[in-house]
């Protein structure tokens, strides 16, 4: 079972957020947009590569999976659902 902490560690390493600690990213913090972590579209692509490499999970269709990128919680739920 992947935890939000596992995911945050991989995101911090993968996106080069070298000055951040996992506990600075809330489980329900928006990953994109002005009010959250402030990631952008290139970071979204990097996250899909992280999911594939680190957790063996592919995201193949943006239309069907728009909501999974919202927060660490939604991403982890998707990872665990795919791995189940």
């Amino acid at each position, binding site marked *: 079972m992947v935890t939000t902490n596992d995911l945050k560690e991989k995101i911090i390493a993968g996106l080069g957020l070298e000055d*951040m600690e996992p506990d600075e990213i809330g489980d329900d913090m928006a990953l994109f947009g002005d009010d959250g972590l402030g990631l952008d579209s290139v970071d*979204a692509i990097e996250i899909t590569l992280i999911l594939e490499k680190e957790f063996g999970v592919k995201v193949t*269709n*943006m239309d069907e999976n728009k909501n999974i990128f919202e927060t660490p919680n939604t991403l982890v739920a998707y990872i665990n659902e795919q791995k189940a």
Partner: protein
Amino acid sequence: MRIYDMDKKCYTEIQKHDNPLTKIEQLSDAMYCYKNSMFKMVYDATQPALVSYINSLDTNILDAEGMQWLYFTSGTTGVPTGVFKTKENSHKQAMALIKTFGDMKFNRVVTTVPFVHIYGIDIGGVVPMVLDIDVWTKENFLPEELVKEAEVEGTLVVTTPVFIKALNRMKNNAKFSKSLFLTSTAPVPIADGREFYENYDCSVLQLFASTETGLMGYKKNDESILKAYDGVKISQKDGMLRVSSPFVTQKIISDGRLKRVESSFQTEDIVEILSVNEFKLLGRSSKLVKIAGKRVSTVQVEDIIESIGGVDAVFIKIRKEERALKDEILDIYVEGSLTLEAKTVKECLKEALGSLHIPFKIYNHKKILRSSVGKKIGFK
């Protein structure tokens, strides 16, 4: 030419949009203007500094007579420049690019790039219009989605180096032997170009271009030498590329004023000229970094951070991280009493540059070294 909205899974009309927000609306509006020879200003409305600069311009200088486009650079270098182009400029440029495709034939263009700058509109929009083939696009692409589209025979993919790197890292078994990838906005490292060709049996044609000059040169896959496009004259001054191009006018807006510039434009690209139409890109002026296709001036970032209380001086070095999608990272060396936190830097950059996530690392309490004329030269 028709526009296919991949999100809505239907064709959409080419029509006027007064406030185009989505990629589809931006493309539809731009192509309507092009088709009907209506002047259009093109800029990235998500850049606050740029928007406020454009709003501050005297409307009298936005003289559109005989012009098709007024493209603005992103403003992330601190000095937005407006470049006027005629319809003929764009058409000539499209023809010069199409000539480099050789025998390859395409039945559609799939584009991942937005339509708020020269690459999106002139290449992602005008080229398919000249070829009279459909453009397929959607708001956000995932690498897996692009793989599916590129597998379709006769697809011309207009994209960026980010996707080339992402597809290389995926190591998918797909082959795109009947398609062609175009990239621009930043160079594709030679190893990445070769890896892409070997993995996918598909060429990447790298377009070397800027808003101020239009298309300048091109190279394929792992080639290191750029060839100038037909009609583009290249030279160098102080080791930096100068370009005289038939793809732009000499009419620009700079520092809030309308100017006529020399036909030869001085770039910030360090080059070696090999022949009348061949050159090698050796690097860029070290003061510019490219993040997600946008040129960002490290001098401007230094100025922004130095405006924070408790920060006396800032020196920025650019670090390369080849495998990362954002492959240029800012190492920020800070002199001053304040222990500067990443959160503070992010807030300041967001205010000045908009929602652009720039990878950086802060080194606090350093001593910034200066030359005898006060220029920052290093740290200790």
